[in-house]
């Protein structure tokens, strides 16, 4: 390219190194920023995760750990720290990786990226301080007319502005890479997934600004009234869409781990990219998922929005549900595991925490988070579960067993490749995704079970011992909440091991130098793909076909069981 490009920028040289395992050029500024964001993410995961354990132990009727005031305070902090701070810090790291590193490019304006990072840290700390001071226990959703202290909202606003800076730098880096010709043809699929996440992030953060800025002014006394229904419509355009950033990001990570560990190639670029494109077009409509039990909204509005326009975004996820395991099966068959329907899966690297975490995340996200999400988001079925603990059951299936587990799996690649440290305590690390994954799947399922029996979410005392008019939940509901507590301990154990391994590795891990053989190796081919789908020697994918068939049957059965439950309710119209 010439010195002056279309956008008029002058090419600059930036410090970089070459990765000995993948051959990728690693921009040093991007590398440092990825490290900073990943470390911040893990710190907020540790804080928020601990809060989550306290919540689960309080909701375990036999333990009932915290007093009511502390319970509601800690629950508010849990939501903000893990759902927002842990996940978005990590996503910014993913965006920098998918742009600068995968495109062999320098990161745009690293100084501005640091400013964004500092804004995010300041915002996250400010909100945490407001929550811990005790008069902002309004839950993560902060529905008016309930009011928090101004700093609660201000912290969230600063955090969002910082995140928006990170997203802008991602876009700018894509432009620079194109201008400077650092890659040939189209961007990689993983970068395309990250681009999807970034586009949804812009919509999400804009919605957040539209609702949180007036709410902040209201808490300062400058605005007299916030309509509670209007608030929910706009707030959830942030609240639910931000979960779609997670979906896009963790699907991108699934593809990335498949590629780096097994040499997997997308079955067809067109289909996988098309599925991401469906996300861009339709995922934002999900605000309606939170408005199905509200007064005054028309059924046709609810149906169109809650179904993401005829389930076209669900279609996107179902496509990934085939193409991700399909690409892995195709690669494994090329790797020589061709016996029967499932040798490719049995002999996959289950001892590598990056793979184990990725595949468990795929299964749990689909079977637990995905299916329950569609059922919960069905206009009429929602009334069976609205605001019961089924709702947190569903989103712990998506955000914990799905996104968080995938991000943890990704971290096992970030540590050796970006931090350039050998992972300490490999046997603990091997165990970690199973502990955390099974724990997270357990809490999701048992909360869903308890919700089906009517247990409310965000509730300190389901025995109603202080209530004027008594009410008793069934014994089954109490059993479910107890099991939820047990599995929360399992998940917490997995979470603690994760934090210990990450901190131990970053501080004390052996420096990885050229020629070092990793404990958890990448695919032998380095950067080369082993599977070439679509050629004359196409391999068949019987294992994947069986998997998606089982998925579809479970989906349909569970869907109709819930209609059966609904039909047995009192009549209402």
């Amino acid at each position, binding site marked *: 390219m010439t010195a002056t490009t279309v956008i008029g920028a002058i090419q600059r040289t930036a410090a970089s190194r070459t990765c000995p395992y993948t051959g990728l050029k690693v921009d040093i500024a991007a590398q440092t920023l990825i490290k900073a964001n990943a470390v911040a993410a893990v710190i907020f995961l540790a804080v928020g995760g601990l809060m989550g354990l306290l919540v689960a132990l309080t909701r375990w009727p036999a333990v009932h750990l915290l007093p009511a005031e502390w319970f509601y305070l800690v629950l508010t902090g849990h939501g903000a720290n893990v759902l927002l701070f842990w996940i978005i810090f990590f996503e910014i790291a993913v965006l920098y990786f998918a742009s600068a590193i995968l495109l062999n490019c320098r990161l745009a304006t690293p100084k501005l990226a640091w400013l964004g990072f500092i804004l995010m840290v300041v915002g996250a700390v400010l909100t945490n301080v407001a929550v811990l001071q005790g008069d902002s226990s309004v839950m993560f959703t902060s529905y008016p007319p309930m009011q928090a202290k101004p700093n609660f909202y201000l912290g969230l606003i600063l955090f969002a502005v910082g995140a928006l800076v990170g997203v802008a730098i991602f876009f700018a880096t894509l432009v620079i890479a194109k201008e400077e010709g650092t890659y040939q043809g*189209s*961007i990689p699929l993983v970068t395309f997934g990250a681009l999807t996440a970034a586009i949804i992030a812009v919509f999400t953060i804009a919605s957040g600004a539209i609702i949180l800025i007036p709410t902040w002014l209201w808490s300062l006394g400058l605005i007299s009234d916030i309509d509670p229904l209007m608030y929910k419509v706009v707030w959830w355009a942030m609240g639910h869409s931000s979960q779609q950033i997670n979906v896009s990001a963790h699907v991108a990570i699934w593809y990335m781990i498949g590629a780096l560990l097994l040499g997997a190639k997308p079955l067809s670029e067109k289909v996988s990219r098309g599925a991401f494109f469906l996300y861009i077009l339709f995922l934002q409509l999900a605000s309606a998922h939170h408005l*199905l039990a509200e007064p005054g909204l028309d059924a046709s509005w609810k149906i169109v929005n809650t179904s993401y326009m005829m389930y076209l975004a669900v279609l996107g996820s*179902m*496509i990934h549900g085939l*193409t991700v395991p399909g690409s892995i099966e195709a690669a494994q068959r090329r790797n020589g595991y061709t016996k029967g329907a499932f040798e490719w899966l049995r002999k996959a690297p289950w001892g590598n925490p990056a793979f184990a975490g990725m595949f468990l995340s795929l299964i749990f996200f689909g079977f637990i988070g995905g299916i329950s999400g569609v059922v919960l988001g069905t206009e009429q079925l929602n009334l069976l579960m609205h605001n019961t603990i089924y709702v947190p059951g569903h989103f712990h299936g998506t955000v914990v067993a799905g996104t968080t587990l995938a991000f943890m799996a990704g971290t096992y690649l970030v540590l050796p490749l970006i931090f350039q440290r050998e992972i300490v305590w490999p046997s603990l690390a091997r165990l970690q995704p199973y502990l955390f994954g099974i724990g997270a799947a357990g809490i999701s399922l048992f909360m869903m079970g308890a919700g089906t029996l009517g247990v409310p979410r965000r509730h300190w005392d389901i025995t109603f011992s202080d*209530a004027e008019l008594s009410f008793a939940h069934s014994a089954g509901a109490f059993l479910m909440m107890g099991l939820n507590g047990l599995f929360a301990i399992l998940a917490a154990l997995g979470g603690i091991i994760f934090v210990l391994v990450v901190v131990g590795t970053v501080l004390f891990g052996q420096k990885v130098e050229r020629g070092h053989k990793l404990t958890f190796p990448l695919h032998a081919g380095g950067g080369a793909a082993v599977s070439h789908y679509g050629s004359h020697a196409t391999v068949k994918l019987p294992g994947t*076909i069986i998997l998606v068939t089982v998925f579809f049957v479970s989906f349909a059965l569970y869907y109709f069981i819930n209609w059966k439950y609904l039909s047995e309710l009192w009549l209402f*119209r």
Partner: protein
Amino acid sequence: MAVTPPERRIWWNEPIERVELTWTLIAFLWGLFMFGFMIAWHFIGQQNLNKEAYRIAPSNYEQKVEEFAKKYAVRQEKGVPVVKPPAGTEIYLLGRLWQWWPILELEKGVSYRIHVSSIDWQHGFSLQPVNINIQVHPGYEHVITMTPTEAGEFGIICNEFCGIGHHTMTGKIYVTERKQAEADQRLAEGR
């Protein structure tokens, strides 16, 4: 690979494998079916949430509920009036910090127009153990036509967080069988 640019620059002309095409088609049709089923339930189902709602000042709503309770109260229970409205009257239920007020006594198989609103924060109307859950907003009077299909004592709990007393917020609905024969006939007719 997924982490490198597509091998063929013109990747959008690559053929799609049959397994991908079939699955995409199945998923698409399943989506269409689920979309259609929500619409269909408005015609074949008996459980659909009414959108009928009115803007109302919380103090006005409070007044309406008090008048209603005074008119049809039959007894008191723990200081809360138990209200037994005749079939066909408009019923008013109030959510406030921290109770559902008043207690209602309804008859099985009879349809009631139940108005519900809040006078302070948002609350979650959660009828248990039936498990019907509806959001209640201050300033919005929501009208739901409800027909109890079973007799007994039912709890209303709050499942929207409403401050430190949230877990003490309860209410009650009694459903009686008194007009058994008449009720069964109505149920048989689908209403």
